[in-house]
């Protein structure tokens, strides 16, 4: 059971239906299983990260929830509507998908591309909508440029503007920063953070773990089946024991006597020339006790910090676990 961040709970309101609710969803192409038994909820206003290696089924999940392909089994509710062929048009009215490839009409200008999509969505006041979308992605001054003359990063921004035209309830972003240099990727991050502040529900598939950690309220890790789901810190807690990293000027003479007697410390091991890693159940309780014990032992303390595992550690741990299981 995962908990939602406070920001998401505030955005979702009390008792609101989730923006996405997926139950045992599966998709099979002939003999090939794209994804299987996928279940999760995404609250309104949440930024939900969907991580997984190549071929894990991320894009197929997005396409399935976006009504582009039909699930083989399972059920889902998208933007408040059951995922059925009859609801496909209405679901597509309420959501927007930014595919991995921008898929722009390169011979048309930025504005012509956006006007075309505004018409497909039957957006009221399309000129105003297009202008607003262009301003949102800082492209108002390039409106009359042919898309074929734009850089990859700018094309990605046009694709994001296109996804914003319909004011979607749920926005699916499929690898929005793939192939972009760090500067442009950061610009796209800023745009996503801006949408997050406006309360747009975002379903983000990505390979970039630092991106997910920075942008997402919760993440799910998929490798054909759902491996784990939760807030990044929850996943860290599930997979890794908490630890304090202690650095001193010199090695302690009797580290077992210093650390072994502390109830807040479950275990310890040396780490480098003058360092120790202490396994603890609560770093906030353990750190002051460790500090006092070190000072009492006459140690010169350089630092006591909580060891933090990145989302990348979590991801690699889960994927490695799966590989080990598969090889057995």
């Amino acid at each position, binding site marked *: 059971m995962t908990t939602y961040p406070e920001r998401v709970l505030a955005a979702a309101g009390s008792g609101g239906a989730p923006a996405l609710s997926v139950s045992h969803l599966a998709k099979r*192409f002939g003999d090939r299983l794209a994804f299987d038994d996928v279940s999760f909820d995404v609250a309104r206003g949440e930024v939900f990260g969907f991580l997984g290696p190549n071929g894990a089924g991320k894009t197929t999940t997005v396409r399935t929830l976006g009504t582009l392909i039909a699930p083989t089994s399972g059920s889902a509710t998208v933007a408040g509507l059951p995922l059925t062929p009859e609801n496909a048009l209405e679901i597509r009215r309420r959501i927007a998908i930014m*595919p991995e490839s921008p*898929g722009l*009409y390169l011979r048309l200008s930025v504005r012509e591309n956006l006007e*075309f999509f505004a018409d497909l969505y039957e957006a009221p006041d399309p000129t105003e909508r297009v202008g607003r979308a262009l301003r949102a992605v800082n492209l108002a001054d390039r409106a009359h440029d042919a898309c074929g003359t734009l850089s990859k990063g700018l094309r990605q921004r046009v694709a994001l503007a296109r996804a914003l035209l319909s004011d979607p309830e749920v926005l699916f972003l499929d690898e929005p920063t793939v192939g972009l240099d760090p500067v442009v990727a950061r610009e796209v991050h800023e745009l996503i953070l801006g949408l997050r502040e406006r309360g747009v529900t975002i379903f983000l598939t990505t390979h970039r773990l630092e991106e997910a950690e920075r942008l997402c309220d919760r993440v799910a890790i998929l490798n054909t089946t759902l491996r784990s789901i939760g807030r990044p810190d929850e996943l860290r807690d599930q997979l890794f024991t908490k630890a304090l990293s202690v650095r001193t000027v010199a090695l302690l003479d009797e580290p077992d006597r210093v650390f072994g007697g502390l109830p807040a410390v479950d275990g310890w091991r040396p780490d480098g020339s003058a360092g120790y890693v202490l396994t603890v159940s609560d770093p906030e309780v353990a750190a002051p006790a460790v500090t006092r014990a070190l000072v009492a032992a006459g140690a010169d303390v350089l630092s006591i910090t909580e060891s933090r595992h990145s989302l990348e550690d979590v991801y690699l741990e889960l994927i490695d676990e799966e590989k080990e299981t598969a090889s057995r």
Partner: protein
Amino acid sequence: MRMSTRRVRAIVRKELREYRRHRSVVVATAIFPLIFLIQPLFVVFRVPSATAATLGQWHLLLYMLAIPVLTPTMLAAYAVAGERQQGSLEPVLTTPIPREEFLLGKALAALVPSVAIAYGVYAVFLACVVLFAQPAVAPAVLRPSDVVAQVLFTPLLAGWSIWVGIAISARSSDVRVAQQLSLLASVPLVLVTSFIAFDVIAPTLGLAVGFGAVLLIADAMGWRIVAPMFDRERLITGTRG
């Protein structure tokens, strides 16, 4: 199902803009009208004054009906396969446009320039014959029944070619393959119009009415027949669900 004229218009407008700016589409669209304009003009201007009346045994205007058969195949074949090839199909399919509207927009976008080009070429041919050919040629070539048939059959033949081209385009992943197959599929129709033009098949009123009715029904049914062939899942993933 409510048809959104705004969405259909948007597709038509977008397609026409793309055609105009796509050099290979412009060239491919211009080739057949030029061939089927130059050939009859060559015949008309080479015939000696004394034998000009012999042109009356043929129906050169009907020979030019190959233009509305062949020209739209280039555009229709590009309709779906072209979008797929440039990666723009998936974003369009994520919008709330029903496939019927999408296909109708694509068909109209191919029909409008094809018919306009055909009528334009006919006008050039007629002007050349009236202004520059031997005096005996014009009465032999410009028979009112042929002109009426040409005007009426042009959109009907173009419609048929467009639906065949779109059907092939929806099942192809490569534009060139789609264009070649569409051209191949239009050969029987070109043969029929050519046989009629050279009097191998006698052009009677009954034949015209029957042929026209068949084409009209085929054009009206084309949309209904082609729509189910437009499978979103197969177009996006390359596999059937």
